[in-house]
């Protein structure tokens, strides 16, 4: 357990010290959302219409982009070798890394999402919905992403393969996430969608670390 928490603590410290992980995904998220109105034009109705989609797509992409950081840096400088031969079972190792990833790369997006949603002229029910939906759905993104990251680690065409592997698995999250927001905007109940998102997160919590652990062992040999 001490190893588990010390690993999370180290990753958080590294993120704070280097800054790049936290800020990169956040910055990317904000940039996408700032660029959209510029590209699409300022009409309020159009913006409000596409806002849930833009927010979710931006969050998905921001997450996708930071996935390779889960293991890559440790792999390159040899730390991963040392982590793997250490006392922590592989799936806990993955879990610790995923938690650190979610805290540094995903949580900041969720915190800033309401402001961006408002600026896109989303109705206030939608703003709340998008925040909740992200909170409940996004752990799936990190967990599934870790499997992809472990599978493609150290590979030559890693980046691409990672996107191709992970993306199809992200689509359900996108669809239910957007559905939840649109339901809220249309004053329909959004609980069913949120429950589904939660269910996916729980499933991913069980499957993700195991699969990613196995993939890690493979990739290192």
């Amino acid at each position, binding site marked *: 357990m001490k190893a588990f928490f010390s690993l999370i603590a180290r990753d958080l410290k590294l993120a704070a010290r280097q800054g790049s992980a936290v800020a990169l995904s956040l910055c990317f998220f904000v940039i996408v959302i700032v660029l959209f109105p*510029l590209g699409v*034009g*300022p009409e309020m109705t159009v913006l409000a219409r596409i806002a849930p989609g833009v927010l979710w797509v931006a969050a998905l992409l921001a997450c996708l982009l930071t996935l390779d950081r889960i293991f890559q840096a440790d792999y390159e400088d040899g730390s991963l070798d040392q982590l793997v031969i250490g006392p922590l079972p592989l799936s806990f190792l993955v879990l610790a890394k995923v938690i650190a990833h979610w805290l540094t790369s995903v949580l900041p997006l969720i915190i800033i999402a309401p402001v961006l949603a408002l600026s896109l002229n989303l109705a206030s029910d939608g703003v709340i919905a998008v925040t909740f939906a992200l909170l409940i759905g996004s752990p799936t993104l990190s967990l599934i992403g870790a499997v992809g990251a472990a599978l493609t680690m150290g590979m030559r065409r890693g980046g691409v393969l990672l996107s191709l592997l992970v993306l199809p698995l992200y689509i359900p999250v996108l669809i239910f996430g957007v559905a939840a927001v649109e339901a809220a905007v249309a004053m329909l109940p959004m609980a069913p969608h949120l429950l589904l998102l939660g269910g996916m997160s729980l499933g991913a919590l069980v499957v993700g670390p195991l699969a990613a652990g196995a993939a890690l062992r493979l990739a290192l040999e």
Partner: protein
Amino acid sequence: MAIDLHKYANPRRFLAITSAIYPWSLALTVILLAAGLYTGLFVAPPDYQQGETVRIMFVHVPAAWMGLMIYTFMAVASAVGLIWKHPVADLSAKAAAPIGACFTFLSLVTGSLWGEPMWGTWWVWDARLTSMLILLFLYLGYIALWQSFDDPSKASKAAAILALVGVINVPIIKFSVDWWNTLHQPASVATMSGPKIYSSILTPLLIMGLAYTAFFVTLLIIRVRAEILARRLRILQLSELQER
């Protein structure tokens, strides 16, 4: 301006000259600010459409001007610093950036405060507003770049490169309203064919503009002097280190 800076860029002379200017610019700031606020808030008539909210203009418009002007100033100072290697030019660019960022931020905030009564929303993504937001990003990038280097002489060159490349955005921001049909007002003061508004509004506006400029000069002097002293301290420390 470039030539002037060039001539007075010697830090010692700069310190001497600025200590002479400083009290005057401080006094000017206070007087103009008082005059501008008085004429703007009490003398100028309320707009027949906008009512009293029009008075936000006297804060908003000069702040927007300053945001644009200070970035231009930074670019010029950077060029001088790069080409003639004058330390004071670099330092003034560095010192001006946060001030410019504040003015830009002020114009964004007052703009949105004004937008709520006028357009019924705090924020729209029209060209003028967005480009002003982008200007804020430019300032932030510039400041972040300064802070990313440990070595000030490197930082000043890197930041100068950025300021010079970034200055192409200033005309785009200035003319964005003319090029695209947007919600925001097109320029009516600083246009090619001269000002197009009544003098009862124009006068306080111009006074406020001057007041902001004086304020900027005052702040700039304070900040550059602090920078020069800090750098001297560092040089002292380093030479002490070499002695050891």
